[in-house]
C-alpha cells in the first residue's frame, strides 16, 4: 500500500508541465538548427521577418515551410502550394491517431491543443515513453509541445533576422541533427520491444528501408513516407503472431 502510494507520488512528480519541458530539451538542437535554417530560407525567398514569424507560428512544420518557400520562389499557384503542404503534412494524421487514444479522458479543448502542436519530434518522444510502458498525461504533453513550439518560433524568427549573416548552416552539420534524433528515437523505440518481438520489428524496419528507397525513384519523398508506412504497418499486423 505504501509502496503503491510512493509509485503514484513519483508518477505525479514525473508528469508535470516542467518535466515535459525538460524532456523536450534533447530535441531542441534539432528544432533550433532547422528553425534557424527555415528562417534564413524564408528571408532569402523574399518573405519579411513578420511573414516568417507568422508562417512558423501558424504552419509550424519544418519540411512544409521549406517547401512553401521553394514553391513561392518558383511562383507556384496558391492552390498548388496549399495542396502540396497538405500532402507533406498528411503523415501527422498517422502520428495523431497513434497518440490520441492516450488523451480521450481530457476535455475537447485540451485534445485540440495537444493535437495542434504535435510534431514528428514530440510524437517521437511521447511514443517512446508510451512504448516503455510509462504513463503520459496532458500537463506533461503540453510541457513538451509548448517548449518545442516556442523554441521553433524563436529560432525561425532569429534565423530570419540574422539571415544574411549565416549563409551556409549546412557546413556546421546542423542539418544532420534531425536525422540523428529520429535514429535515436527509433533505437529507444526498439529497445522497449519485448525480446520475442524483436525480430519481427527488425524485419519491418528492413522492409521500410527497402520500400522507401524503391519508392523514392517513383514519387516525392513525403509521399513515399506515407505509402511505405501504411504498407509496412499493415504487413506488421498481418505477420504478427
Amino acid at each position, binding site marked *: 500500500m505504501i509502496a503503491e502510494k510512493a509509485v503514484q507520488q513519483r508518477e505525479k512528480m514525473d508528469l508535470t508541465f516542467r518535466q515535459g519541458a525538460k524532456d523536450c530539451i534533447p530535441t531542441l538542437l534539432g528544432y533550433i538548427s532547422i528553425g534557424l535554417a527555415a528562417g534564413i530560407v524564408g528571408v532569402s525567398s523574399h518573405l519579411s521577418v513578420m511573414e516568417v514569424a507568422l508562417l512558423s507560428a501558424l504552419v509550424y512544420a519544418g519540411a*512544409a515551410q521549406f517547401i512553401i518557400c521553394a514553391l513561392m520562389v518558383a511562383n507556384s499557384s496558391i492552390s498548388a502550394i496549399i495542396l502540396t503542404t*497538405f500532402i507533406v503534412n498528411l503523415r501527422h494524421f498517422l502520428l*495523431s491517431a497513434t497518440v490520441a487514444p492516450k488523451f480521450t479522458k481530457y476535455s475537447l479543448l485540451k485534445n485540440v491543443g495537444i493535437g495542434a502542436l504535435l510534431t514528428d519530434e514530440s510524437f517521437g518522444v511521447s511514443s517512446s515513453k508510451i512504448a516503455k510502458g510509462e504513463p503520459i498525461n496532458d500537463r506533461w504533453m503540453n510541457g513538451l509541445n509548448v517548449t518545442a513550439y516556442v523554441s521553433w518560433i524563436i529560432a525561425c524568427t532569429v534565423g530570419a533576422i540574422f539571415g544574411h549573416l549565416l549563409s551556409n548552416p549546412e557546413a556546421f552539420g546542423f542539418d544532420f541533427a534531425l536525422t540523428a534524433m529520429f535514429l535515436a528515437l527509433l533505437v529507444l523505440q526498439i529497445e522497449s520491444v519485448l525480446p520475442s518481438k524483436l525480430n519481427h520489428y527488425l524485419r519491418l524496419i528492413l522492409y521500410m528501408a527497402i520500400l522507401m528507397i524503391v519508392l523514392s525513384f517513383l514519387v516525392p519523398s513525403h509521399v513515399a513516407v506515407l505509402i511505405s508506412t501504411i504498407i509496412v504497418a499493415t504487413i506488421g499486423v498481418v505477420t504478427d503472431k
Partner: protein
Amino acid sequence: MSIHYPTLIIILGCALVTVVPRIVPFLVVRNIALPEPILKWLSYIPICILTALVVENFIIQTNDNVKVNWPVIIVVIPTLLIALKTKSLSITVISGVGMMALLRFFLLS
C-alpha cells in the same frame, strides 16, 4: 516588416491543411472506440515513421534524378552505434552533428 495579402492567404491556407490532420484523430477517438486491429496497426506506426524519417535522408531527389546522399549514410553508421550504446537522445544528436561537421570539413578542405 510587412505582410503581403497573397502571402497571408498562403500562410492561412497552409496552416488550415496542416492543423486539420493533426486534430481530427483526437476528435474521432473521443467518440469512437477503435477496434483491436486498428489499435494494433497504429502500434506499428512509430517504428515505421521513424525509419522513414531516417531513410528519407539517404537519398536526394532532384527534378530529374535520384542521388545517394553518401555523407548521411556514412555518418548514420557511427551515430547508430552511439545511439545503441548510450540510449541517449542528446548525446546521439550532438555527436551526430559533430561527426557530420567533421566529415564536411574534411570533404571540403
